[in-house]
């Protein structure tokens, strides 16, 4: 992503702003145990889609905000080497949010896909959008 225009970077950032919370909740729910930041960063990368779209550094502030909202819980544990680690786990409220957000994301994705498909099909030939709206 070396030569992306500032517009594209901004767009990515805006997209990611909400989705990163969804991804992190999903990772922690799937893991079913508490994980610390670095571990989560690796897991997000391993999830596939992530990769370089998602700077690992960006997950930490999101984790903190989810923690502040009560969707995650966290505790700090000293580690044998290096600085202490903060472990995050998903709360019941977080699980509820996750299932609702998954629905929201599905709706949103279908809506956007339809809009893009209509756009590709050319103007005037896209009844798909009306169906959904």
């Amino acid at each position: 992503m070396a030569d992306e225009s500032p517009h594209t970077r901004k767009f990515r950032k805006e997209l990611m702003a909400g989705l990163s919370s969804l991804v992190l909740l999903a990772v922690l729910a799937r893991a079913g145990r508490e994980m610390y930041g670095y571990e989560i960063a690796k897991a997000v990368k391993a999830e596939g889609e992530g990769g370089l779209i998602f700077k690992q550094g960006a997950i930490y502030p999101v984790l903190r905000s989810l923690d502040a909202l009560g969707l995650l819980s966290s505790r700090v544990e000293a580690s044998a080497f290096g600085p202490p680690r903060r472990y995050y786990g998903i709360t019941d409220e977080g699980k509820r949010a996750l299932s609702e957000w998954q629905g929201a994301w599905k709706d949103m994705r279908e809506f956007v896909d339809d809009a893009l498909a209509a756009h590709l099909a050319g103007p005037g030939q896209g009844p798909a959008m009306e169906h959904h709206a």
Partner: protein
Amino acid sequence: MKSDAAPATVRAYLDELRNALKGASPGLISDALADAEEHLQGEIAANPNKTEAEVLATAIETYGTPQEIAEEYRSMEAAIAGPFPKPEQKPQNHKGFFGVISDPRAYGALMFMLLALPTGIFYFVWAVVGISLTIPFFLFIFGIPFALLFLGSVRILSHVEGRIVEGLLGVRMPRRLPAQSTGETIWARIGEALADIRTWSSLLYLLLRLPLGIIYFTLGVVGIVLPIALIGGALFDLITGESHVHFSDVPWLNHLFHTAPGLVLLMTLGAFLVFVVLHMAKGIGWLHGHLAESLLVRL
């Protein structure tokens, strides 16, 4: 993305991140630094056969440059402070003089004032004993580990105090212990701690907390007892019909407090004092919070 010389060590990275975050709240800065350090140290630990510079070069690609990370934290702080209720919100300031009765910050500060004496004594004793043992111990071989232990305990105490200050006074403090250098010699670590101004300002804070704690505690106890005594006493006198308020030197006051209107006046005064005390607590909390922030938060 356009950092001319990419940082080659964790320290350099953290310094650059600290620079990029200049102007943000100190608590946010130390959160960001702690997260970055945890991640980068994790990356180094996961790649034992690479040099620090090599690990950092790839880590900056995946983790993000200091500038990008700074931007993430800033926007996250703005987002949280925005739609979600946070203790730092303004509206409570506009409730006027009597609005303080429903301000949790005022009660938190009052609680802090009462706690300030026992914690202040503990901090003071700890710091004084630590300092006076560290210096003679340097004559012996165990002086060095003892000094390290003591400096470490000062950091932990400062952190605990920071948590109390944030919880009760609402001033954002670091949520993590500050970064500690690793893998260097014991002398380098002591030297580093001694050269760090925060070590000294934290020690100063711990010592200062005793006299301040005495003042806070006294004001807090008087502030709680006085209104209760005024209201309760006057109420008791009203109900039983006999007055226990005596001003033998001031006959007209003595007379006033033997009448029902006089006692009601006394109760009103007591009730008014409650608000004055809450305002005082809030003011002290504000002042102390900023003192703690400037002495304890490592920038």
